[in-house]
């Protein structure tokens, strides 16, 4: 069933359609929330909150905008709420954030640890681009940032990750 029909069924109050939406987006949302928040429990809380917001406001969704963009924007807001509760800035600047530690010359390259070592904005842009396969324009919509900002973030993220990958003596840990 195509997404338009599922959303229409949700808007008509069909509870089974909510389940379909949940099953379709549960994993991408959890993956993204986990990369932003770093802890599985927090990621689950963010995803739960995001789905509740989406279901409560399904009638506010306007056709024409991409549903996944709408979903991820809500998810990111839920993640930022959790970060705010933890006392961290909402959307840190690439230049000013203290980077998480990624051990130099590790004997193996761990992609998750490498992504987690990126500054927040770079990390979100890279995950949406490379893992969830969003277009750069869609990422800009999700984050409400300019296309230029998103492009720069993705390029810098890739450059840093390529550096870490080349620095890890080419051994790759899944």
């Amino acid at each position, binding site marked *: 069933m195509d997404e338009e029909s599922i959303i229409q069924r949700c808007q008509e*109050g069909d509870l089974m359609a909510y389940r379909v939406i*949940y099953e379709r987006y549960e994993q991408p949302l*959890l993956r993204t929330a986990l990369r932003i928040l770093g802890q599985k429990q927090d990621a689950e809380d963010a995803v739960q909150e995001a789905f*509740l917001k989406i279901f409560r406001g399904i*009638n506010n969704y306007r056709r024409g905008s991409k549903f996944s963009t709408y979903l991820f924007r809500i998810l990111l807001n839920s993640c930022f709420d959790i970060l705010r509760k933890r006392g961290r800035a909402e959307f840190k600047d690439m230049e000013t954030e203290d980077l998480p530690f990624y051990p130099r010359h590790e004997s193996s390259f761990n*992609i998750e640890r490498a992504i987690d070592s990126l500054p927040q904005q770079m990390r979100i842009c*890279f*995950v949406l681009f490379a893992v969830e396969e969003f277009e750069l324009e869609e990422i800009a919509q999700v984050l409400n940032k300019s296309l230029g900002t998103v492009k720069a973030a993705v390029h810098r993220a890739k450059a840093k990750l390529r550096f870490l990958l*080349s620095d890890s003596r080419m051994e*790759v840990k899944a």
Partner: protein
Amino acid sequence: MSCKKFEKYERGQMTFAEFELHALECIICQEKMHLDERLMSMAKSLAEKPIHAPQLWSQIEESLRRENEKSQAKIVEPATRPGSLRPFRFRLLPLIPAAAALLVAAGLGIYFSFKALSHPPSSGLLAREALAKVEKKEREYVEAIEHLEQKALPKMASLDLEMMLLYREKLETIDAQIERCQEALAANPANAHIRRYLLAALQDKKAALADLLSYKPEKSI
């Protein structure tokens, strides 16, 4: 040694054909391209690693159910407290007179229905003639309900989630009541008390459907 052509290509400042031509002779760019392909393939592989959250859906369902219960409870509260709940209360205002009317109608209905019938014996059992009259009345209600359902149920599907859940739960509660009465009456059809409950439940359902049909959603601002 360094070469920035790969970054130029990534930024769209070079076409792929131009970059490919350059990369044939540039080892640095070949290496960067190779690393980039590996990186992107590793990143994509993350999408294949499932994250197990077996309780998540049931928690979401439970939260929706709790919210629905809360919103139902708000219907019977007096709508006097100002503040954040005001818009929601305002939306429920049309239900309050309907609920009051429902209670009055249910009371009067039961009173007149049973007054019109022959008085049940003190044992609580209906006489044959009285039973026939009650059954006729119930059939009338069932027919009216079926008629209303044809119009009201499609309308319910078009309501927003809160209102839809509210009406759906209300109707489900009444249906459960009707079912319990019918089950009890299967064993004891002349029981006046159960007949009275059944009639009241049928009246409730008819009123709820009529209320749903007359409900006009507020335009969101």
